[in-house]
């Protein structure tokens, strides 16, 4: 019998639709997989086994009754813990929200339920999504299924590891500076950052409001597109939500499978991110160059383009992001939700309780960024830092505009290196921040970005990722080209990349809470 954890969501939905598999069976095998491997991987902060099985049974019952169900009905899905869920605790990876049960669902979670997907649980992340390795989770790191001693990327390392470890076929992520695309790269999975405003952020715990975007995570481009179709669309609860009628991303991905889908496509290679700069691993550069050669052979026109201001993107990001985060995280005030901690001595006043709570509840990276953001917004420094960073943002948008006058899509490696060892960069802030050099420009400009597997680096046998970027609103173009490139690469390998992941040890019982 088919191992239901190994097939794609598209294949699983076919089996569910024709009745050869029930959602309860599909859900149960994924829960069993989580129980077997998540003690080692630690992708999940919470697993809602009973609720998931009850949801699946309800889907099965309604399918049997002849109800018209959506294309992903009955398919299990994991949810990044930055998204609030009324029936599961939501912590955003922070002690300050330990055990918090939100009083409502995020819009994207509501949409999952309305489309009859089966939420399995909540996935681990860097605290409040601040990080590139999931090492900053207050509940312990997630481990990369390709090598458990290595990071799964971040901040959405839990969602990426969950799909890469076959614990779920689909997951939701959020991407502020690369938190969907960089984990996809280092775990051999696929992730998509939609155009800013394409997916509602209502109920996504806000970090940097002008950068945050929710998006889909999966193992194939088609599955990513199917999940994108479920969550996209206007939401009046999010003032930044775009009132756009989005085309079907799944149809766009299907179009990419046709012969000649890459013929004549103008592919721009961003010279500043092409792998020649410091910090790019040789094997990443090699796989990237080989992929470009495949694209040329398939009829694409590969053109070098320069985006000179991308050099300043990390500096701008690490001003804009902390500034906005310092403001957003002011909501953790020990009054309405979350932790309350009294000061060790002295008078018990609201202000002192708030300071004691935040001192006890926030981890080191969150404190660092809030204080940096407070500095950047201080009178006297505001123009030099935050104001200048906003100007850099304009320059980066102009670079994109100029590039997209010449090409249809921009490409780069999704991450400069393969997965590094847990602990290797935790004490080197700038080395950690540079991980996001390839992904941050898309967030600053609001354009969509797709990350997909690009092969294993020869020197360490670990996954590398390809990033595609299109002009704002052209998300569908990325699915068409992404599906075409995925097909081309898999034909050249003779298999999918994820099929090469080592078998995980099974049978070790997962503990309820992270205890690494």
């Amino acid at each position, binding site marked *: 019998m088919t191992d239901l954890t190994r097939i794609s969501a598209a294949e699983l939905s076919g089996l569910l639709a024709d009745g050869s598999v029930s959602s309860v069976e599909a859900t149960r095998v994924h829960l069993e997989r989580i129980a077997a491997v998540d003690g080692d991987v630690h992708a999940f902060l919470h697993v809602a086994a009973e609720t998931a099985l009850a949801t699946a049974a309800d889907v099965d019952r309604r399918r049997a009754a002849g109800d018209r169900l959506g294309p992903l009905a009955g398919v299990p899905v994991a949810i990044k813990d930055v998204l609030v869920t009324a029936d599961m605790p939501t912590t955003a990876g922070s002690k300050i929200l330990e055990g918090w049960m*939100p*009083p*409502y669902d995020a819009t994207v979670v509501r949409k999952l339920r309305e489309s009859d997907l089966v939420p399995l649980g909540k996935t681990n992340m860097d605290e409040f999504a601040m990080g590139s390795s999931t090492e900053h989770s207050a509940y312990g790191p997630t481990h990369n299924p390709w090598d458990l001693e290595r990071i799964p990327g971040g901040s959405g390392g839990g969602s990426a590891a969950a799909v890469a470890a076959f614990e779920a076929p689909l997951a939701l992520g959020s991407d502020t500076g690369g938190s969907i695309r960089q984990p996809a790269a280092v775990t051999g999975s696929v992730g998509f950052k939609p155009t*800013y*405003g394409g997916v509602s952020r209502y109920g996504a715990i806000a970090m940097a*409001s*002008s*950068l945050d975007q929710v998006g889909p995570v999966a193992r194939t481009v088609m599955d990513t597109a199917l999940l994108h179709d479920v969550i996209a669309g206007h939401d009046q609860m999010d*003032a*930044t939500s775009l009132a756009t009628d989005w085309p079907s991303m799944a149809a766009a991905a299907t179009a990419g499978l046709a012969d000649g889908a890459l013929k004549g496509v103008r592919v721009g290679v961003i010279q500043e991110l092409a792998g020649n700069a410091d910090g790019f691993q040789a094997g990443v550069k090699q796989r990237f160059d080989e992929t470009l050669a495949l694209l040329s052979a398939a009829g694409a026109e590969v053109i070098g383009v320069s985006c000179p201001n991308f050099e*300043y993107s990390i*500096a*701008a990001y*690490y*001003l804009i992001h902390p*500034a*906005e985060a*310092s403001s957003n995280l002011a909501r953790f*005030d*020990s*009054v309405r*939700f*979350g*932790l*309350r901690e009294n*000061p060790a001595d002295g*008078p018990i*006043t*609201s*202000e*002192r*309780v708030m*300071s004691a709570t*935040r*001192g006890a509840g926030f981890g080191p990276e969150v*404190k*660092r960024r809030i*204080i*940096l953001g*407070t*500095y950047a*917004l*201080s*009178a006297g420094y*505001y123009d*030099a*830092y935050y104001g*200048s*960073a*906003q100007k*850099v*943002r*304009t*320059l980066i*948008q102009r670079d994109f505009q100029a590039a997209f006058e010449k090409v249809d899509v921009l490409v780069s490696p999704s991450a400069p290196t393969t997965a590094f060892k847990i602990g290797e960069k935790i004490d080197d802030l*700038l080395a950690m*921040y540079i991980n996001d050099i390839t992904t941050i420009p898309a*967030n600053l*400009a*609001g354009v969509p970005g797709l990350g997909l597997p690009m092969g294993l680096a020869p020197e360490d046998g670990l996954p590398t990722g390809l990033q595609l970027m299109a002009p704002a609103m052209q998300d569908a173009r990325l699915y068409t080209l992404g599906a075409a490139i995925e097909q081309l690469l898999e034909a050249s390998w003779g298999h999918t990349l994820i099929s090469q992941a080592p078998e995980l040890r099974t049978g070790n019982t997962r503990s309820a809470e992270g205890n690494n």
Partner: protein
Amino acid sequence: MSTQPVESTEPGESPEPGVITAAQVAHLASLARIDLTDDEIASLTPELQQIVDAVALVSSVATPDVPATSHPMPLTNVFRDDVPVPSLTVEQALAGAPARDGDKFRVPAILDED
């Protein structure tokens, strides 16, 4: 969102622009309402210095002729129809509160007595 300049960093004002001192970190932490231990201040000071040195790069290209961008997809006049929609009940709103008093959030004294 509010990203206007906050209070001046006085009295922890830096001796010169771009130099981060321990006193300044302590003052920023108090503005941000985060209690820090002396050890945390000692490690944060050089860390913030390192980051501030790196991000100062932005001012080299941020010339006066470049307009600032605050949002990637500028939208204006975002309205919805003015119709009542369900909101949280009192019980839902209070469900996560660390302390409550009837239908209200219970908070410690707002003013210091001294």
